[in-house]
């Protein structure tokens, strides 16, 4: 580990943290356009965060220290994940520290803490949201793992940067297994980030909400951190998807300054596309009833396993 590596690593984390609300803003903006609205502008999430940071925090009387701790845990784990995921460079020092399975574990930890915090206050909504979130997570995690297994088998490595590297260098070929895994990943992404059709991020209707129900008790800087980490989670998932399925254009390592010149616009462009795609999906689909969510995630799991099986059978 040298100084360039550390610098590059820090740059990447900073970039991810800074750009995450922008991606969210872009998705919302695209949705607004698709729905013939004007939209609040790209920078709305930043304004929201600034507003929340300037407020005074209100805590429930029976809140435990855990409740106050959770926003920081959330933010930290998402930041850590951003360090592992190759969004600009593939050969970063932190990338080798944890493989895809650890990454799934990291996301699970974040989810667990959030659910604990939601139940901490003891309100009905918090527990309900936590239960729903755990249900979704319980179903989405195996699917995500299966997606990672498939890609790892093809690339012969469980480390995300290595997979991305190997895919980027691989000659172009039809991989039915990757297609399955890609669709499965997209479904997991929608479910994990509380997007339509599993959850609606813009509603506070008690019958349907999942994520929002958990964070109802938070305010001010706590809420800001939670929302920021939610945006960061979306950003991370998008970058995982890009690394697995569209890995072209990533810089090879910290000592490759020319690579960065390509990687930065390439990643930005790909993220723009992903954001627009997400907005399109969310506009075209209606939110599912909650009890259909297991069906949705079972399908994702099925696709991921099929991808794995097809790869094992056909070698492609």
């Amino acid at each position: 580990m040298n100084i360039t590596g550390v610098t590059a690593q820090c740059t990447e984390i900073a970039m991810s943290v800074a750009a995450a609300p922008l991606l969210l803003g872009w998705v919302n903006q695209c949705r607004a356009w698709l729905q013939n609205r004007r939209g609040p502008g790209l920078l709305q999430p930043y304004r929201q965060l600034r507003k929340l940071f300037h407020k005074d925090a209100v805590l429930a009387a029976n809140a435990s220290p855990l409740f106050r701790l959770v926003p920081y845990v959330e933010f930290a784990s998402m930041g850590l994940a951003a360090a592992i995921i190759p969004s600009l460079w593939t050969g970063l020092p932190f990338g080798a520290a944890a493989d895809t399975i650890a990454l799934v574990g990291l996301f699970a930890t974040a989810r667990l803490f959030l659910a604990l915090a939601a139940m901490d206050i003891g309100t009905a909504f918090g527990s309900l949201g936590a239960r729903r979130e755990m249900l979704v997570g319980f179903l989405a995690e195996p699917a995500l793992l299966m997606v990672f297994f498939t890609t790892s088998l093809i690339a012969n490595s469980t480390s995300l940067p290595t997979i991305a590297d190997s895919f980027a260098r691989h000659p172009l070929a039809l991989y039915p297994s990757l297609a399955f895994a890609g669709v499965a990943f997209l479904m997991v992404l929608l479910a994990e980030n509380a997007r339509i059709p599993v959850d609606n991020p813009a509603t506070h209707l008690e019958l349907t909400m999942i994520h929002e129900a958990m964070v109802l008790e938070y305010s001010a800087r706590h809420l800001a951190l939670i929302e920021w980490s939610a945006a960061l989670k979306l950003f991370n998932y998008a970058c995982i998807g890009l690394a697995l399925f569209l890995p072209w254009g990533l810089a090879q390592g910290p000592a490759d300054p020319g690579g960065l010149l390509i990687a930065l616009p390439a990643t930005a462009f790909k993220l723009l596309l992903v954001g627009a795609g997400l907005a399109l999906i969310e506009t075209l689909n209606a939110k599912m009833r909650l009890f259909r969510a297991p069906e949705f995630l079972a399908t994702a799991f099925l696709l991921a396993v099929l991808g794995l099986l097809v790869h094992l059978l056909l070698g492609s």
Partner: protein
Amino acid sequence: MAPLPLQIINLCAALMLLLSFAMLSQRRVLTLVDLFALQGLVLSISIGVVAWNTGQPHLYYSAGLTFVLKVVALPLILHRLIRRLDARWESETLLNIPTTLMAGLLLVMFSFALAQPISELATTLTRGTLGIALAVVMLAFLMMITRRKAVTQVVGFLAMENGLFFAATSATYGMPMVVELGVALDVLVGTVILGIFFFHIREQFDSLDLSHMESLKED
């Protein structure tokens, strides 16, 4: 790095499998018929690619036959039947869908394991897809077991035939022409007969729901 025709065939195989699962979880009858037609299309494309790759003329006929029968004729017949019977209702399943899908997944693993020793012996380019063909047969079988509507059972029956044709192509580059013609004739006649049956069933039971047909049981 696999050659392009093989890549296309593998893709077709994967699509066949995917479509089988889509059919397994599809509630609406009309969409089900469309999915079946799509599966037939994928099947005929893959047979066509095999024909082009191996230069065997009878496979071209086979691909054409599949296209005419499974993409044009049978879906057309089924669509007309459904419209005439006014049977565009939702078709429910016995088990719930996630359970069915998981059962299907187990069947797929079973078929892959069963086909493995056979594939290893095969010399055809497409040998790997035999497992998928068997899986398509098994999934169609599962669909026939779990569904209780006459039309869906028939679609399951036809999808099973799709899997069998695919198996024949992938293991041996197709059966002899005379056999394929015979099989196709049987399938066509069978569908027409079943079509007539739909009317009898509805006349007798006022619905195409087979759960009414449970008088003949061992008691």
